[in-house]
């Protein structure tokens, strides 16, 4: 690991000031940042430790409805916060389906949003990678790309955003709050992420020094709480990133769908909101056929970026299943194997 400066600012303003110089990186849980520093993929000159910034570790219910979550709230704490899990069960389920218990205890909300793609070539400084080194090329294009993107990719980068947490957040119109040298701003999480296009090095809209301070979930998101699920396909039953995942939520009245929400994970450089699918479901009956049509629509523009054509069909089926599960109703408690197709086969509930 390279030599670096380490600063521990006492306030958000100090943190932003410290991180505004090139080569600085925020240090939150460190579970992604340090791994990449160890491989030499990242060599920041300064780490700005934000773990002790005051006020960023709160989960608040807002007076106008909805909830605000500080950027330093740990993934595990958020998933197990009773009010939060009750209002946004699919988000809790997504959080608990990610990584391992140890990692979730360390990982933060802000860090989860900002985690880098798991494309192996990004982590390997001996490979060429446009994200790491703009203009260098993309080793994944002709390399090991079985798990790469099928939507929104470009020849400059075919990587996916790996987060589980962010998938339902995008489905529920979560808003990111940002503090920076130029002041405060906020935007929907969906718009926060950028598709690669010609400039894959710009992964999000975050500019130098800008800090994510928190997230807001709007009150309407809780209206889906009775029927919302996260479903994650992975290569082992737990502790693996999503091959494909989906957050699906429904409001059903008198046997027809009022509103629907759908976002996919593991398919694109950002959590992929599928509004066309949502629109198709409005007024439809909550049947397998309707959901299959929605799935078709969600993947209409998909194309393989390598040895990953199977992900397109898999994604369709995951969407259909996630909607079927949502239609059946949110379970009383998060299953022992969160977001797993085997959630009912083993263990007992861990989340009363």
């Amino acid at each position, binding site marked *: *690991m*390279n*030599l670096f400066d380490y600063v521990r600012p006492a306030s958000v303003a100090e943190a932003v000031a410290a991180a505004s110089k090139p080569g600085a990186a925020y240090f939150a849980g460190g579970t992604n940042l340090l791994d990449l520093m*160890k*491989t*030499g993929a990242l060599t920041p000159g300064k780490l700005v430790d934000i773990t002790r910034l005051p006020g960023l570790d709160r989960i608040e219910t807002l007076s106008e409805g909805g909830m605000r979550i500080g950027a330093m709230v740990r993934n595990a704490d958020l998933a197990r916060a009773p009010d939060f899990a009750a209002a946004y069960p699919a988000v809790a389920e997504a959080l608990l389906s990610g990584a*391992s218990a140890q990692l979730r205890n360390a990982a933060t909300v802000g860090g989860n949003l900002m985690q880098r793609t*798991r494309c*192996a*070539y990004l982590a*390997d400084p*001996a*490979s060429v990678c446009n994200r790491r080194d703009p203009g260098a090329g993309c*080793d994944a294009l*002709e*390399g*090991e790309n079985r798990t790469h993107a099928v939507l929104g990719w470009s020849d400059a980068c075919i990587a996916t955003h790996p987060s589980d947490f962010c998938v339902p957040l995008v489905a529920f119109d979560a808003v990111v709050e940002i503090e920076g040298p130029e002041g405060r701003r906020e935007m929907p999480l969906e718009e926060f992420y950028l598709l690669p296009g010609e400039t894959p090095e710009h992964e999000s809209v975050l500019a130098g020094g800008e800090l994510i301070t928190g997230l807001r979930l709007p009150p309407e998101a809780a209206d889906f709480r009775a029927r919302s699920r996260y479903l994650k*396909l*992975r*290569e*082992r*039953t*737990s*502790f*693996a990133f999503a*091959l494909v995942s989906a957050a699906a939520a429904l409001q059903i009245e008198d046997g027809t769908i009022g509103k629907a929400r759908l976002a996919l994970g593991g398919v694109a450089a950002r959590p992929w909101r599928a509004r066309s699918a949502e629109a198709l479901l409005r007024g439809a009956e909550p049947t397998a056929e309707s959901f299959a049509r929605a799935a078709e629509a969600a993947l209409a523009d998909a194309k393989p970026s390598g040895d990953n054509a*199977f992900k397109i*069909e*898999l994604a369709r*089926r*995951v969407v*259909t*299943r996630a909607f079927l599960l949502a239609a059946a109703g949110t379970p009383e408690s998060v299953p022992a*194997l969160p977001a*797993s*197709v*085997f959630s*009912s*086969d*083993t263990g007992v509930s861990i989340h009363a």
Partner: protein
Amino acid sequence: MPDTIPFPSAQVRFGSSSGQPLTRRDGFLKVTGAATFAADNHPENLLHAVVAVSTIARGRVVSLDVEAAKAHPGVVEVITPANCPPLALDPDEKHGLFGFRFDALQNDRVRYAKQPIALVLAETLEAATEGTRLLAPVYETEPARIGFDNGEPYAPATVGVGGAPDFDRGDLAAGLAAAAHLVDTEYETPAQYHNAMEPHAIVAEWDGDTLTIDTPNQAIVLSRAAYAAFFGIPPENVYLRSPFLGGGFGSKAILAGPQILCIRAARMLQRPVKLALPRDQMFGPVGHRGATRQRLRLATDAEGRLTALEHHAVATTSSFDEFIEPAANASHNLYASPAISTRHGAVRVDTGTPGPMRAPGEASGSAALECALDEAAAAIGIDPLEMRLRNYAETDPATGRPFSAKALRECYAQGAERFGWAGRPLAPRQMTDDAGRLVGWGMGSALFPAPMFQAEARATLRADGTALVETAAADMGQGAWTALAQIAADSLGLDIEQVEFRSGTSDLPDGGVAGGSGHTATAGSALHNAGTDAIAKLAEIAVNDPASPLFGAGNAGVEAREGRLWHREDETRSEGYGDILARSGMESLEGSGTGGRDPADAEARAMFSHGAVFAEVKVDPDLGQVLVTRLVGAFAAGRIINPKLARSQLYGGMIWGLSFALHEEAIHDRRTGRPVNADLAGYHIPVHADIPAMEALLIDEDDRYVNVLGIKGVGEIGITGTVGAIANAIWHATGVRVRRYPIRIEDLIG
């Protein structure tokens, strides 16, 4: 570091030590963190070493920025081929059966990714690590050859460790011609890397011409000599300590470049040096299981009896050495067939050299054979278990010799009963659960040789009636500290509490190799013989001493029990060990013993452990995700010294089999040869949620020929059978026959 294991509370024991499910005696040390693994040693004045490894798979290192690395604060020295003193032996030569060529900075050539190209020494681990990065190597790169179709095929001289590549028995052509059914099928298994929880580590310290090394090692005394040879010193000058291994799986039995470099550096700098490989460096210089491509032809008569069995395997090896996964040999000893023909081919690729990895050959060969047999059963329309019974080998198919003991029929029967195999529908895709998931049942036969190596042991009776027993055995987590002490205590007629067991260091009698599933049998026999020898000597003294109550009983007329010698015919006549020694004025009495097999016995009989594994899987019909929901194994492996430890070994093997079937695969970039998943986030092994309800039944087997104790091994057999059982269950659930491991979601979504 303790040579003996203190443990907190007395073990409850009923009767003799052997056969008792004692909890491992080192468990307390391990769970409290008190067990010293190699990298836990911090001698004073220690330097940290980090290996700089190549990022190309073939070519040459043109330059290294040694100045930049040396300028980094804390870096003390950088060793490269330019300043690395030569070793006493050429690492590019083969030295002995277990000697593999290795890379220790002998030149600037690169022959696989993650090969050592320099060693950086620093006052801290961090400085040494950064030093390797600052070396910024420049290469002359040649295209990497990765994968079966890009490598260089050739005919290997040997397979496994010194085995013959080809084998024929009977008339293959006739067997094929006589067939009513023929299955002709091909399976592929990927490269797998051992990845023990404890990566390879070493702390080396020189004192003049003597060397002390702390390093996890599966063959302690043997390795002492091997290390000594490379530094031109006598074996006695090397003191190797390996009280605990955090897993070995074969990769810690073989001497490799990084350890040699660390010792080299310690000598150069005259300071103790520590080297612990980071996880990604486990994917290069320390061995792996080569990939295989296997073609099987199974010819059967109308009833499913084999008329010919042909198994051809091609395995990958490195460009500069040979270890061919002997996969086809899995067809030699399991199923009766009048004609058996096996062949091995090899392909040279630009990876490190493969080596023995838990059940080398048996695992990958069984993974193909058990599925091929299932294919044959399906083609003929008979139950897979019936298929195996119809081809039950009453004598060893390869040699015609009788088996020393073979309780496989009982394994089939009890395993099937426990699993509930009866009533399994013949056709696939017949069973579902309440949630609509496909359910499938599959099975496989397990087989593993019961070899013995050479070992020595010493048993010393002490004046206070206790004993000291010594052998340099290796506990890789399998429980040698416990099972071997049980054997030793029994041989001495002492309670296990009264026996001090020393092990794990090279100054003790040679405990042999912890490998080939032969350690308990070999070191155990040596301990047993040493104890028996000590007791015989003691009896000799007693029966010849007129003052002893045993006087005149004759050597055979006494037996040892509870710390006393007893007259066989007269329970009132006995004497404690301490009293016998005291009267004859002896401080102690030493016995010695060796373990090994009489070559005549080995010639006369075929010796194997056997088993049957039954698996249930559930598969999501749309999404292709697989969960193994039940695994039942039944194993007959001779006498079981400690059922708790034996079951743990079998569980570990079965879990490994599950990993083989569904998870493990090292992926090398086709262009650069660099592994792209060289960490445990990317190189998947099962997690707890993948592990089903599991049972390992221990089937009684009385084997009078394998060795004096009747012990076979349980360390590796659990993998065999399991891989195929799971793959067969997936076929039974889905109707899809996947012929490439690991089986993936996309194979099953149709």
